[in-house]
């Protein structure tokens, strides 16, 4: 029963947050560029995401000539549906976890790999060389960046002694120096960079590089199919930021009045940072992206892990 309620709540949360994120992104982008952003629909453009969703739903859905129908239409569905289980172990508040489980982090890491499958299907099924290129880039990027991500999370697991997200939050305190980030600053940095790469956000957004590949793997999608990819990307962003909040920033704990509002505040701060980064930096070239991973992030995260293991054993 609880699972059903949780599933519905999670879907509502994703939908609501998708709308909020669309608005936030466009407003922040606008103001960084010294322009107002959405303004006409609703007061200061607050109803813009709803109208956008309406527009996407109303568009014609067609299959490109020669596209593999099954793969083409399954890709957005897979992309979106598979994001839902990722919210299950996240502790939104003291009693607000969908399902307490011992291996929450493992679940998240496992399911986030299915995003790759959706990208592959989209790239191949579109019958479009540009999509194929985008998908190939996306696959290489995601696979590469999963490893330092894993190692950074492992470092935190070492210090906390548990893979359960709710326990990790409970072990931290309310004040910033009691958060895990004070113990593992390098792991946080590595985690955040890998998170940017996993969700295909700038400066690592080559798979959907608008100016090079005309929208990459989702070139051929229109209407709600594109909307699903879009929502899936935002949902992924939310998951990643939520996990970062739970692991590194103390989750729902706060100096006073601990609760779900602290969790949301910290999560939105990280989302704001992600959006801010997107509108500041140019794109990293593909081979440089992989270079960063193999030459910097991987050795650093390994070293961090070793050091953490050593220190945990000693103290």
């Amino acid at each position: 029963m609880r699972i059903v309620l949780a599933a519905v709540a999670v879907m509502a949360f994703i939908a609501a947050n998708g709308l909020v994120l669309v608005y936030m992104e466009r407003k922040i982008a606008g103001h960084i560029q010294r322009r107002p952003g959405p303004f006409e629909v609703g007061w200061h453009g607050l109803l813009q995401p709803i109208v956008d969703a309406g527009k996407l739903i109303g568009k014609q859905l067609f299959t490109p000539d020669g596209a593999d129908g099954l793969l083409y239409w399954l890709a957005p569905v897979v992309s979106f549906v598979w994001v839902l289980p990722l919210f299950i172990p996240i502790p939104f508040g003291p009693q607000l976890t969908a399902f307490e489980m011992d291996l929450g982090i493992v679940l998240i890491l496992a399911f986030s790999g299915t995003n790759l499958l959706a990208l592959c299907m989209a790239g191949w099924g579109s019958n479009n060389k540009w999509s194929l290129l985008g998908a190939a880039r996306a696959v290489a990027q995601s696979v590469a960046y999963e490893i330092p991500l894993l190692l950074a999370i492992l470092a935190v697991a070492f210090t906390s002694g548990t893979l359960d997200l709710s326990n990790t939050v409970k072990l931290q305190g309310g004040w910033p120096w009691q958060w895990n980030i004070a113990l593992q600053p390098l792991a946080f940095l590595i985690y955040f960079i890998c998170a940017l790469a996993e969700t295909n956000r700038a400066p690592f957004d080559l798979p959907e590089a608008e100016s090079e590949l005309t929208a990459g793997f989702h070139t051929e999608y229109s209407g709600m199919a594109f909307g699903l990819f879009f929502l899936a990307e935002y949902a992924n962003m939310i998951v990643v930021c939520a996990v970062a909040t739970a692991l590194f920033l103390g989750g729902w704990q706060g100096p006073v009045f601990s609760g779900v509002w602290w969790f949301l505040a910290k999560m939105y701060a990280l989302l704001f940072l992600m959006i801010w980064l997107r509108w500041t930096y140019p794109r990293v070239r593909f081979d440089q992206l992989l270079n960063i991973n193999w030459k910097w992030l991987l050795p650093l995260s390994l070293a961090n892990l070793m050091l953490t293991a050593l220190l945990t054993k000693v103290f």
Partner: protein
Amino acid sequence: MKHHLSPEQISGDFYSRRFEQGPDEDTLILNMGPQHPSTHGVLRIILALDGEYIMRAEPVLGYLHRMHEAMAEHRTYLGYLPNMGRVDYLHAVAWNWAYVGAVERLGGIEVPRRAEYIRVITCELNRISSHLLWWGAYLLDLGAFTPIMYAFDDREIILDLLQSVSGSRLTYSFLRPGGVAFDLPDTFLDEVKAFIPHMRARLPMYKALVTDNTILRHRCEEVGDLPLEMCRRYGATGPVVRGSGMAYDVRRAEPYGVYPELEFEIPTENSQDAMGRYLVRMGELEQCLNILEQAVQAIPEGEHLIKGAPKPRWKAPVGETYFAVEGARGKIGVHLVSDGSSTPYRCKLRAPGFSNLSLFAELAEGTLLADAVSILGSLDLVIPEIDR
């Protein structure tokens, strides 16, 4: 196993079919354009890709051919002037100047000193706006979405300035044989004098945000290595050749107007890569501001159009001339041939972008696809000028 696809099996059009398939069947033949967000116009490049590496690149032109040179044969000398602004709308004053200079050379027409100074001021302002747009568009190609907005903010001031003097914001038909069309409004010089320090204060911000940005440096450094002898073979001019070490500027090589009386440096870089071309253009922004400063100080009073300037039905004396100016993209040339009637017999337009683009095929071999985008951006191509 060798596997040649026959022309019927390769789908596509005339150009795709004749793009010879190599013996390796692993190459992907891809069309970049003509609708593509980062080819700065309707340029089509057929690429043979091996994974991410470009094996062969071949630009296909003509999607924007508007027959400007043919139109010249059916317009009077004055009536052809609006066309010049449309050839390269980003540096319209330079194209205006090239044409008007050719007509003046043909007809032996003098230009008053005030008009010469007005030409310099408007041309340099236009050059700054062209470089700002290039900068913003280049960064847009590379994935940074905000610098173009900051550049357009500055560009807006220039566009307003040029509107106050010529009435247009982009396609200025502002020069006339024998001077300029309108005199400067009263507040113009003060506004230019206020603009120069404003722009100077913005340049460090551009440098800090973009030029020093390590991600951009990695995208531009050692990308598109262009040796000087390749520039010479293709006739590349402008920042492209100055980024490869040669300080060739038409304003100093074949001086025109009052440029011999103005002091400015020619920014040159030796790195031969996209970063070099980038730094040359940023340096040119500063030099334009220097020239503007001197010109607004030195501009004399006088008339803006010489008495007896050609009227619309003016007949040029028989002969032919060539006049070249330094545009934002390189050396702009106009070759006019007159047979004594009121319309030119032939007008040949030398577009710098055409020569600059022709070296792309050789330059892009062996580079990554993302690098190709970076190289195209660093060549500063405007396809309307290439196709004319």
